[in-house]
């Protein structure tokens, strides 16, 4: 349904996202994880055509039969809010402070051709659907009269209003209280059609998604089914990320990834992670491709196309394999993956 190939995002000649490819099947839930500055949000915004001024995306992205990249806004307008929608990180500022909540929900429906009266009625139903109390009354409230969690529910109602095939959530719970987060996540997983869920919270992604893409330095460094990636991370970055999020016994030092994320444009050539990677070798100066290693057991009944023979590549050697544009199976871009 959504197919992204070679998505590259640039600002002032600096590549912020490099050659990202993935796809989403109808109803599928994919998590996009990584630290701040890894390019997750830009990836999502470029699909919506909402990149900030001066930032441009190239590559190919198709939603169903429609191109999302390199098309004029007049064409994208028809898709945004109807076939794909997005919930943003910051609910406090995402709603127009001067407009009643119900009108803001109704707006997305009238924009896509629903009559005004009908849109108003349905707005109340939607507020009810996202479990806001007294929806009819709340529809007449202004955003400042709602809590952050309630406002995020309103944003979700707006996103769902036209029954989109794809919902993109960019850290939808990061700004919310922990107690509210859980309810919000449950609600999203209950109502979402296909979901692209962006977060830096690994526990959240584990509860929401079937598949993950791990981003670092504007690249997808590892991808695959959630279970496999989380139980057996191959890329050293993913490994570090998981180690850092694991609960450690009292008194022991928290495991960390040494160093910090470089500023955009200051990542090393070759493997972008090599300046922080404890396993880096001169090989890493060559850029590793995101490949499906053949030693990964293919899921039963899902034989790897074109290569039935699983062989063990020697450790420390480049892993051969076809570059994977879809990321359906476990893939990673690392010259010396973790076993």
């Amino acid at each position, binding site marked *: 349904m959504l197919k992204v190939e070679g998505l590259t995002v640039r600002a002032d000649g600096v590549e912020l996202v490099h050659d990202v490819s993935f796809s989403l099947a109808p109803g599928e839930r994919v998590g996009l994880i990584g630290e701040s500055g890894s390019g997750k949000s830009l990836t999502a915004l470029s699909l919506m055509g*909402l990149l900030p001024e001066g930032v441009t995306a190239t590559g190919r992205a198709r939603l169903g039969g429609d191109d999302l990249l390199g098309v004029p806004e007049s064409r994208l307008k028809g898709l945004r809010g109807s076939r794909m929608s997005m919930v*943003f990180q910051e609910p406090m*500022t995402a709603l127009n*402070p001067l407009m009643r909540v119900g009108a803001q929900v109704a707006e997305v429906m009238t*924009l896509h051709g629903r009559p005004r009266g009908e849109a108003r009625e349905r707005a109340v139903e939607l507020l009810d659907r996202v479990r806001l109390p007294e929806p009819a009354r*709340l529809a007449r409230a202004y955003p400042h009269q*709602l809590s952050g969690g*309630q406002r995020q529910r309103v944003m979700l109602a*707006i996103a769902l209003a036209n029954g989109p095939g794809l919902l993109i959530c960019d850290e939808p719970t990061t700004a919310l209280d922990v107690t509210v987060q859980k309810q919000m996540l449950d609600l999203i997983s209950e109502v979402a059609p296909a979901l692209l869920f962006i977060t830096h919270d690994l526990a959240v992604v584990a509860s929401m998604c079937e598949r993950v893409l791990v981003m670092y330095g504007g690249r997808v460094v590892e991808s695959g089914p959630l279970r496999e990636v989380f139980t057996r991370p191959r890329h050293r970055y993913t490994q570090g990320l998981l180690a850092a999020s694991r609960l450690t016994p009292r008194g022991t030092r928290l495991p960390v990834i040494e160093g910090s994320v470089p500023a955009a444009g200051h990542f090393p050539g070759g493997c972008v992670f090599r300046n922080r990677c404890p396993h880096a070798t001169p090989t890493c100066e060559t850029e590793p491709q995101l490949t499906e290693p053949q030693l990964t057991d293919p899921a039963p009944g899902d034989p790897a196309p074109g290569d039935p023979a699983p062989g063990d590549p020697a450790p420390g050697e480049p892993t051969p394999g076809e570059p994977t544009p879809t990321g359906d199976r476990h893939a990673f871009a690392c010259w010396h993956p973790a076993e």
Partner: protein
Amino acid sequence: MTPPNPGPAGAAAPYLVKRVAVLLASTAVAAVAVFAFMALLPGDPAEIALGVNATPEAVAELRRQFGTDRPPAVRFLDWFGGLLQGDFGTSYVTSAPIGPQIADRLGVTVVLVAGGMAVALALAVPLGTFAAVHHRNPLGAAISAVSQIGIAVPAFLAGILLVFVFAVRAQALPSGGYVPLADGPGEWLRHLLMPWLSLGLVQGAVLTRYVRSAVLDVMREDYLRTARAKGRGSTGALWRHGLRNASIPVVTVLGLQLATLLIGAVVVERVFVLPGLGDLLLSGVAGRDLLLVQGVVMVLVAAVLLINFVVDVAYHLLDPRLR
């Protein structure tokens, strides 16, 4: 959850009552201030009227006639009581009632200021918005630069330049004077065009910069991105969600500018020989007509207070967060 209070009527009525009370109270305080200030000025109206050679008896007699021999508090209450009934008293110099003169002149000044403001708004809103939307290209930058120059020009200078170009050189418009609307709308308009422009161009330049920065701020707001995510184009999002939000800071400036315009009108009326309040004020000062000056100043002060009141109410209508 705090129950939302969506009804606008619930909070608006007490608010309005409170604001009106504040307006009346501040007007009363302003009246005290204006009266006290005028009373402190040296110069006795009776002495002024009779000249330096008058006998003390004659001066005392005239003081009694004017009522200026009474204690200040009594005179204030007399004057303020009159004001409340629309009676501004009688001029010590011309013996003419002051109220009708002010009423006469007020109309001209209001028309002048309103026209000037309209010119300023008609210029600033489109230009400022355009400059914000195109802030990255040369035309937008050019608008900012030109408005910067406009700010540096005082209204009376703009007026003199306009007179030079349109009246002296092109001979297209009269250089001054006033024709009442009743005597012909065409002539009325021809006589007001240049005064409006000289007030409006300068204020418009100032306002353009405020509109530009307000729109720029709003363009960076998350809710505009939300509007685009809903399927609005960037222009549509700005129209539907941006302009009303941007108008809030602009209204603040507008209120301040109206007060400035009122003062600017005093000078511009001189330049264009318009029979407005400013003209009346200046001739009152020149003729030492203290009570007339007092009345005009009071009207100007009250007008500024009224403008502030209107700005406050406008905020309230624009921004539900204040309700």
